[in-house]
Each structure stands twice: as C-alpha cells, then as structure tokens.
C-alpha cells in the first residue's frame, strides 16, 4: 500500500514538473483564434516537453475576467494590452518582471520599436505579439473625381474637406456612440500639435485639461467641426454604422485602425480605398502614431514561470511571430519577421517604422476612469463646441479626483 502511495505521489509530481503551461487568451474571433492556435502549435513542436493548455475567453468578457483570475487562479501566461492597461496590473504587483526574457531572447533588439510601451521604471513586464496602425482610410475614387491629392499638412487637409463638402460629399465619417473614435481624433490632433511627450503627460494625469497648450488642439478640432466636415448625427452611430456612408460613396475619409480593412474587403470596395498618414499640423513636432499593441504577460501567481518564459521568448522565433501577426491581421513587432503583404499593412509598417514615437491609443494610455470621462467630453465637444470651457473644467475636476492636485 505504501508503495502504491509513493508511486502515485511520484507520478503526480512528475506530471507537474513536466510542465503544464496554462495560457489565458482573449483571441476569440475566428481569424484571431486560428492565428493564436498556429503560434501555440509551433511552440508545442519546438518544446514537446511542455503541455500547453489554452483557456479561451470572449474578447470583451476577458476585460472583466482578467481582474478575477489574476488574483484568484492565475494562469502562467495571460494575453493583454500594452501601456496603461498593463501598468494598472504592474502597479497591483500582478504581472512579473520579464526583463530577463527580453535580454536572453534578443528582444531588446528585435522588438526595440515597442519596448517603451512595455516598460515601467526601466523594467519590461510583457512581450508584444502584434500591433496595427491608425490613419486616414479614404475613397481614392472620390478624390480622383474631384482632382484632390492626399493632404500633407493641415491647410491642405482643410482644403480637401472644403472641396468635398462643396461637392456634396461628407468629408469625414465617424461614429461616436461608443466614444473611442472621438478619442482617436483627439490623440492625433494633440500629438500633431503638442507632440508625444505632452500627450503622454496628459494621459498620465500630469497636465491640466485647462492647460493653455490644449487650446490649439481644441481650436484645430473646431476648424473641422464648425464647417460641418464630420458626419452629421455621429453620436447615433457605432464605428460599424459609420462605415456605411463611406462604403456607399457618400463620405470620403475615416480616421480608424487597420482592423477596418476586412470590412472593406467583404464590402467589395477595397479597390477604391487607399490610406494616408494623418497630416502634419505644427511644423517641427515629432511624428507620433497611434499603434495599439497586444501583448503577453506572466502573472505574479503563475505556477510554471520557467515554461511561461519559454512561451514569451518564443516570440523571437521569426516564423512563429510572422504567422501570428499576419493571420490575425496585425503587424509583427519583431523587426526580423517577414514583411506584410497586404498593401494597407505594408503602408502601416513603413509609417510606423519611420515614426518618432508610438502611442497606444487614448483609452489604453489613460487611466480607464479618466479615459471614459474624457471621451464623453470629446464627444460632447464635437457636437456642442461652444461648451469647450465647461467641458474642460469638468475634465480637470475629474483629473484632480483621480490623479490628485498638480
């Protein structure tokens, strides 16, 4: 009997040490899931000694679930987002320092472009697996009909808008029902006018919303709002609803992320579409772009840290990194990964490679509480620009509550 017990103990302990790696994933869409599965399969092939168990969550539900599982029943690897979304858990001591993975797997070199968004106090707390660009997706056929060129600066951009408007075309489509699209506009206007550092200070709560430097940002925005360049009644539309005018050829431009491309393809208008970088507004301000980065982390409560680090380090495998990003419609942060083939991704990759700085996106850079209140304010401003002073005073009050007095 005693022998049997020792045998069982031995057996179970070997199972554990042989390494079961639990990975919680939010890659629930059809193509995202296939892309992630490909990465997991490649990892299994390279590390047959590790048994990988993937728990898949629905993408939106994951955002609330992660708070529970990180504290209660932590997996060995969790998929998440860079920037403030990551920092929140780092501050809670729920993510581990993985700087050694960066150093050992050569990520400091291959992932240099996204390193900043995974760094807190000089240490890395996760490894990126994919990111995508934001920019203006426009109807090339409408531009060509009117003989318009891609605007390079703010004056040209406004002129293009005026010409489109004059010809009965909505210059810019947008749906602000779920607010974040307005956050994209604020990001770009502020990045182009006040630059990356100021923008990051603002998202970190270190700058007042009544700061005079923000006057120019709101003033530039107004230059598009007052003449009615944005889609009318945009507060009733979701970002998907706002696609319809552009697909129908009634609206010309859309400031949105690269995840828009599959819709354009299935709607059969992708051949009429093209992409341009958000124009320069203030000469001499460094070019920063929004490129939200999706990441992997090791929770502090992970049981199998050793294998989890192998799983993260596997991103240095060029082929696996390429496939995951490509199949999921993303760009790979690994600079040795194969170049993308989709033309929008190609343009995005070039644009981001040349960028001076990369921001995550308003609601990933700012504290969730502040991001929500601010985006509500942006939406209100886009409809009632005369309330600017009141809105900014309200946001400043909110900022002070969350981040404390300056």
């Amino acid at each position, binding site marked *: 009997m005693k022998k049997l017990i020792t045998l069982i103990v031995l057996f179970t302990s070997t199972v554990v040490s042989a390494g079961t790696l639990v990975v919680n994933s939010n890659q629930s869409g059809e193509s995202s899931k296939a892309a992630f599965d490909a990465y997991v399969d490649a990892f299994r092939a390279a590390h047959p000694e590790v048994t990988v168990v993937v728990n898949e969550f629905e993408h939106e539900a994951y955002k*609330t679930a992660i*708070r529970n599982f990180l*504290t209660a029943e932590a997996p060995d690897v969790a998929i998440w987002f860079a920037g403030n979304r990551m*920092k*929140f858990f780092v*501050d*809670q*001591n*729920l993510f581990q320092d993985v700087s050694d993975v960066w150093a050992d797997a050569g990520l400091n070199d291959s992932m240099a472009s996204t390193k900043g968004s995974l760094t807190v106090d000089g240490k890395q707390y996760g490894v990126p697996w994919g990111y995508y660009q934001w920019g203006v997706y426009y109807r090339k056929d409408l531009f060509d009909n009117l003989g318009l060129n891609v605007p390079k600066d703010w004056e040209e951009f406004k002129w293009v808008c005026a010409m489109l408007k004059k010809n009965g075309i909505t210059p810019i489509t947008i749906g*602000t*029902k*779920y*607010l974040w699209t307005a956050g994209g506009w604020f990001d770009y206007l502020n990045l182009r006018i006040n630059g990356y550092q100021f923008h990051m200070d603002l998202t970190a709560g270190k700058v007042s919303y009544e700061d005079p430097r923000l006057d120019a940002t709101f003033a530039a925005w107004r230059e598009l709002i007052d003449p009615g360049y944005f889609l*009318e*009644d*945009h*507060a*009733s*539309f979701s970002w998907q*609803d706002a696609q*319809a*005018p552009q697909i129908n050829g009634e609206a010309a431009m859309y400031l949105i992320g690269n995840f828009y491309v599959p819709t354009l393809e299935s709607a059969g208008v992708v051949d009429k579409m093209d992409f341009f970088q958000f124009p320069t507004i203030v000469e001499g301000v460094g070019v920063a772009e929004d490129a939200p980065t999706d990441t992997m982390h090791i929770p502090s409560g992970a049981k199998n840290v050793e294998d989890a680090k192998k799983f993260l380090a596997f991103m240095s495998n060029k082929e696996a990194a390429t496939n995951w990003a490509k199949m999921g419609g993303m760009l790979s942060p690994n600079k040795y990964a194969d170049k993308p083939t989709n033309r929008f991704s190609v343009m995005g990759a070039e644009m981001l490679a040349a960028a001076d700085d990369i921001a995550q996106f308003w609601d990933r850079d700012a504290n*969730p*509480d502040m991001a*929500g209140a601010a985006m*509500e*304010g942006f*939406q*209100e401003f886009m*409809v009632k620009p005369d309330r600017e002073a009141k809105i900014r005073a*309200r946001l400043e009050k909110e900022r002070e509550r969350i*981040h*404390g007095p300056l």
Partner: protein
Amino acid sequence: MTFWERNQLRLAPFLFLAPAILIFLIYVIYPIFDSIWVSFHEWNGMDKEGTRGNGNPNWRWVGLNNYITLFTDDEEFYVSLFNNVRWLIFSLLAIPIGLMLALFVNQKILGMRYIKSLFYFPFVINAVVIGVIFTWFYNPKYGALAYVLGFFGIDPVPFLADENLATYGIIIASFFPGIAYTMILYITGLTGVSREMIEAGRIDGASGFTMLWNVVLPQLKPATLIAIVVTIVGALRSFDLIAVMTAGGPWGSSEVLAYKMYQESLFNYRMGYGAAIATILFLIMDIYIAWFLYRLFKNERSEK
C-alpha cells in the same frame, strides 16, 4: 417514538424550505448588506490588501464620502436620477395605450385571435433585439423614421444623438414590449367584467367613455394595479435598452442609476462608488415597494 417521528409534520415544511432560504440568503440577502458595506469604502475591485499605483491602498474606509460626492459633486448622478424619474412617469403611458388596444382586440371578429397574438409578439422578443430594431428605426441616415419624415418633407430627427431626446427615444422603444404586456393583463381582466353590470349601465343610459370610466374600469382595478407595479419596476430597472441603444450617451445624457452603477463599478474600477449608487437605487425601490405593500394590504382589508 423517535424525535423525528414525533416532529416530522412540524419540521417537514422547514426542511423543504431550507434549500430555497439558504440560496436566498446567500445570493440575495448577503449581497445587499455586502453592497451597503462596500459603499462606505473606496475600492477598485482588486485585492483588498494591495496598493494602487499612486501608493494608496486598494480598499479604504471613506465613511459617507461616496454619498457626499454623489449628492454634491456629481452632475451625472442628477442627470441619471432625473432620467429615472422621466422613465417612471412616461413609461406609465403604456398602461392607457395597452387598455385601448385591449378594448380594440376584445371584439368578436373573424381572425382577431391572430391579431391579438401579433400585438402580443413584442413582449416575447428579447429586449436587446428590440433595442437594435429601434436603433435602426431611429437611424437618421438610413432608418425608417427618417424615411417617413422625409416623405412629409421633415428633416430627420436624430433621436438617440440628441441629449434632450435620447431618453424619450428609449422610453418609446420600451413601450413596444410594455404595451403588449399591459394589453394582455387587460384582456384577461376584460373576460372577468360582468355582463349584467354593462347591461344595467346601458339601461341607465351610459355609453362610450362614461361606460368605460364608471362601469368597466372599476372592475379592471386589479389588472391596473398589477400593470402599474410591473411598469414602475420595469422603469426603475431599465438598463438593457439603454446599453444597446445609446450606451448612456450622448455624453452620458441618457444614463439612469442602474447604468451609471454598472459603468462606475465595472469600467471605472470604482466599486465603492458603484455600490453607493446601488444603495440609493435600492432605497428608492424600497420606498416604492413599501408604499405598494401598504396599498395592497389596505385594499385587502377593506374588501374583507
């Protein structure tokens, strides 16, 4: 005789009730008190022992601070409260409309059964589906409403994008199932209306509105009472239509207390603050339920 044999009859009901009571205590009563307890704290929903990025603890006693902020420093709270009041008042309109429909379909005409079931259909559909249908209906660019208004040469009204109209737009959508429900209540009520009294009323010269007001309606009182209760409870818990149709917008102008609570606690990581809103909503419902129970008992006593 054993203890069990002696007391079996007396103990059995309690034993049968025990599982239900236990579940009720764990899932209803305990969370109520726990929420009230949480509402006196500042908590971000994370480990209660841990600390935040700015060095403050995750879980901290703040006494009545959440309530003070709510009442003195949160415009959105008053917007939500006022919207709840609008919901309370305007959703009651579903009751007379339901009564009218019930009177209309309560005729012996060929095929009326099918018409009845058609009118009842909205109540069967999920609220989310109704929300989506009405969002399309209101769509100022491609929606049916814009099309109809355009036919009369009127510019489209962006119901859901207007801070003053959004709440009314959602309430109108809530009529869709609400009217169907009150209609069914009244149809069943109408079958109980006594023929003799109507005949008697007719002999006395009552007809039309007088007949309805003085003879039919008093007999429909139980149905009316249930209709009011269900409609008001529905109005106070309105959440799903708002989440689907406007997500509380534009800029928070169509939020109600239940939606604000959800937003603050789950998205803004302010569990304590959300719990304070929940407590306020709980108190409002309590007052109403107490009033309702009082009315109910009073009625029963007078009937005896």
